[in-house]
């Protein structure tokens, strides 16, 4: 039984330092050995719209968010309006005192739909439509209120440090708010200050100023307020734990496994990966010259995929990273890579579609598209990671698949993983293997042909610049040398040669890389991608409540490991499909490939990730035989 499990949420206008505050908080907790799982939610906006960051802290591994908030911190009215209702009855709200009188109608960034819902709620509770009304309602439920005047703290701090500039430094209220929270939650100040130092490490002067402010606010809160009913405390630190954001996993995986060319067009949430790669473009290589990744920002995603194909033809491990709208533009070139058997990796950070959809929100909307993108029949591998840690190791696997089978690989990630900050085991590059397949280093004799027949259907691959290795490629169907051919017999040879790779991949890729089996039971969950975390947390909760449920995470979605999944499900009575999309896209695969149908669907497509609680409730309902065939989850602001 874990003794610590609480969720701290900070909100504020976009550009107001919410993310910085959350990173400081997560760093301070992680520095005390605690496990954190943080998730950022924001609008498609640069400044002003509401963004918030929820950090779940525990003394054991946590892999998802919960429905509800233990401590809410807000220095703007919208944060309180948006989230106060979600604060647990035994929770707390830290807020700016000046906000009490703000009326709901005065906040322009709150949309009409939300205002209407909140209005109904407050009217039903007989409260005025103000922050005070909402706070009163919370206090009556048991919520502890911590009013803070950030203005006053800054004024006192200015006086005490004899630095009048601080008086107007409202930008620092985020750091003050975190520090007060840490004080209320009983963590020691040293990890807080260390975390502040790390976050502002690029600017020494600003780091010092923020540390002073943090220290002051921390002391202020421990003197002024009594301790909050839930206290955090340091626990023995596991060795080699990193605090990583999801996008860093695929970036580091790419560097480690030898991807040396990446092109991209800016898009949320994928471009963080490319920017990270460019920020770390030069690195050390054992017993060798320094290595580098060439990162090229292109004019569009068509160019991004075109460039990596060109680079891959030189033998360079190459990839691009994008999201749904960008991937749509890549469809034609994906087919070119398919027909010419060029190994490329497309890292697909999904978000909610269709079209621009919910551009900054989560979704697993692109599975069917990834499997089918591009005209004509050609092989590709679609592979999905479940969390940050998997992202690192799977990236290396995807490059191996691409090289071995000489085809495009689409590595499915998503916004939930991309923007999650969590404590994970330090990535271990020695666990990565690198296989370049049949890539040639040298050709001694003339007469090379790129698409020469071979028993396994995969031909030795030359690269631009190799003596005796000249080949031709074309988007047209081609003969063995790569010249255009419309011959019927050749067409059958080439189509079957390419298609045969799917069977080969299913045979050769280890079963444990295709599917992760967490155990099966009468009721068994099938899912893919980032639903893994909430599902595993929900299963723990279910087990504690006396319920048994199995879970199979499918990682290789195309070619689909039908036989293997079928055999794993042999004793299972009911299949539950869980996905973050509207139509149950993996469910369709199950229905297509298995000799049985999905029994229950749990779906979420609000753009907000699933919480473990809502999964717990919906799975329990199924086992209790009280559920409809399809349940749609809704939690989250």
């Amino acid at each position, binding site marked *: 039984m874990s003794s610590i499990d609480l969720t701290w949420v900070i909100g504020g206008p976009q550009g107001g330092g919410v993310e910085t505050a959350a990173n400081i908080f997560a760093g301070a907790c992680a520095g005390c050995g605690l496990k954190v799982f943080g998730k950022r939610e924001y609008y498609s906006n640069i400044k002003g719209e509401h963004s918030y960051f929820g950090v779940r802290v525990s003394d054991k591994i946590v892999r998802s968010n919960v429905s509800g908030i233990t401590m809410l911190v807000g220095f703007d009215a919208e944060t309180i309006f948006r989230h106060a209702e979600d604060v647990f009855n035994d929770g707390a709200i830290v807020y700016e005192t000046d906000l009490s009188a703000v009326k709901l109608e005065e906040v322009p960034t709150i949309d009409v739909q939300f205002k209407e819902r909140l209005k109904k709620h407050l009217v039903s509770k007989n409260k005025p439509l103000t922050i005070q009304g909402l706070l009163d309602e919370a206090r009556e439920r048991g919520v502890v209120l911590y009013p803070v005047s950030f203005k006053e703290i800054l004024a006192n701090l200015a006086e005490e440090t004899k630095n009048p500039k601080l008086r107007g430094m409202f930008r620092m209220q985020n750091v003050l708010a975190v520090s007060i929270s840490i004080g209320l939650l009983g963590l020691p100040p040293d990890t807080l200050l260390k975390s502040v130092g790390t976050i502002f490490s690029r600017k020494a002067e600003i780091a010092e100023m923020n540390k002073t402010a943090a220290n002051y606010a921390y002391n202020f809160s421990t003197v002024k307020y009594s301790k909050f009913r839930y206290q955090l405390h340091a626990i023995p630190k596991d060795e080699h734990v990193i605090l990583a954001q999801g996008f860093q996993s695929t970036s580091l995986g790419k560097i480690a496994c030898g991807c040396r060319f990446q092109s991209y067009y800016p898009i949320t949430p994928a471009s963080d990966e490319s920017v990270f790669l460019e920020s770390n473009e030069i690195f050390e290589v054992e017993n060798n010259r320094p290595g580098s990744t060439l990162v090229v920002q292109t004019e569009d995603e068509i160019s991004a995929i075109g460039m990596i194909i060109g680079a891959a033809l030189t033998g360079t491990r190459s990839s691009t990273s994008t999201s749904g709208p960008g991937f749509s533009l890549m469809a034609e070139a994906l087919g070119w890579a398919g027909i010419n058997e060029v190994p490329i990796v497309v890292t697909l950070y999904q978000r909610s579609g269709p079209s621009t959809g919910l551009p900054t929100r989560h979704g697993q909307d692109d599975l069917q598209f990834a499997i089918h993108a591009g005209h004509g029949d050609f092989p590709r591998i679609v592979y999905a990671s479940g969390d940050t840690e998997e992202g690192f190791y799977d990236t290396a696997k995807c490059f191996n698949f691409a090289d071995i089978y000489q085809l495009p690989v689409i590595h499915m990630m998503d916004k939930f993983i991309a923007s999650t900050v969590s*404590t994970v085991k330090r990535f271990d590059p020695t666990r990565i293997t690198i296989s370049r397949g049949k890539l040639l280093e040298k050709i001694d004799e003339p007469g090379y042909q790129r698409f020469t027949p071979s028993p396994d259907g995969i031909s030795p691959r030359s690269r631009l610049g190799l003596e005796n290795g000249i080949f031709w490629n074309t988007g047209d169907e081609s003969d063995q040398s790569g010249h255009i051919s419309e011959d019927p017999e050749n067409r059958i040879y080439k189509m079957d040669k390419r298609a045969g790779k799917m069977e080969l991949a299913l045979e050769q890729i280890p079963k444990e890389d295709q599917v992760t089996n967490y155990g099966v039971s009468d009721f068994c969950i099938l899912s893919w991608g980032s639903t893994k975390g909430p599902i595993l947390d929900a299963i723990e909760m279910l087990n504690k409540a006396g319920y048994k449920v199995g879970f199979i995470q499918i990682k290789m979605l195309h070619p689909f490991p039908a036989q293997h999944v079928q055999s794993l499900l042999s004793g299972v009575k009911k299949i539950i499909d869980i996905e973050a999309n509207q139509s149950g896209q993996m469910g369709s695969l199950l229905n297509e490939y298995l000799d049985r149908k999905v029994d229950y669907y749990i779906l979420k497509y609000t753009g907000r990730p699933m919480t473990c609680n809502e999964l717990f409730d919906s799975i329990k309902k199924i086992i209790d035989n009280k559920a409809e065939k399809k349940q749609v989850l809704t939690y989250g602001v």
Partner: protein
Amino acid sequence: MVSNLADYKTEVHNDWCPGCGDFGIVSAIQMALAEMEIPRHKAAVFSGVGCSGKTSHYLNVYGVHTLHGRVLPFAQGAKLANPEMTIVAVGGDGDGLGIGAGHFVAAGRRNVDMTYLIFNNGVYGLTKGQASPTLKLGLKTKSLPEPNVNQSVNPIALAIASGFTFVARGYAYDVRQLKDLIIAAVKHRGLSFLDVLQPCPTYNDINTRDWFSGMDNIDEMTNKPRPRIYKLEDTGYDPLVHIDSPDEENEKLTQALIKSNEWDSKIPTGVFYKNDLSASYDERMAARIPNYLENPPAYQEISSGGKSITDISKMLDALEV
């Protein structure tokens, strides 16, 4: 190594229409590669889609026949990953200035060290003669149901505005001049552009070989045609940016733009603009990644015995809690 012209030819059957200007261009490329003695495996020709797209199959060097409009992204990716390669990209005017126009502009901004030839004939030949972006407004070539309703784009001016650092025009029936222009373009450090006037004998019945030769415009005194095509070099035109100053650059850009607008009666060929003082993309990269050129992406060692040899420990240390 003495290169033999025949070495640069493949045995692939050439299916262009008889009299097509493309034949001259492919010959000029073969002659240029042979004259420069570029080893066959160190050269790659990338092509777009259309009649000109088949060019890569007729050349006995690495040949990459890409997608419609996308030749420049593919070619740039290859050059950036392996800067040792000599890269020539070719495509039609519809390919490069219609569907691929965005790439054309972006490539100019990058100034990657390679050469791009547009086979410019004013029509989409392989789809039976629709108007292409360079066909003049109001012209009705033979397979158009109605006269062209769009203004034409000026490829030379667009290249100059986009940042190409070598901009020239050749004529498919002047193979010798074209070969020399290709050599100059390939030797130029940076992105070079060649607008090649290439009459389509099947679908463009207006801008024909005879039209370029001035057969419709006979000098009454001499009874000889007045050719439209002339060479800039014969007029004392100096395309080179000599000193690194905005004034000098503006002057050379402006004169090139003015020349690029000449059409109906006088059509200049030769080098319009050449700037060796603007850093190429690989030079800009090398300024950032010091060993980029001697250890480019294509030649980096990434593994030993199936294990990664890249050291990411510093990046991981920065994330340790």
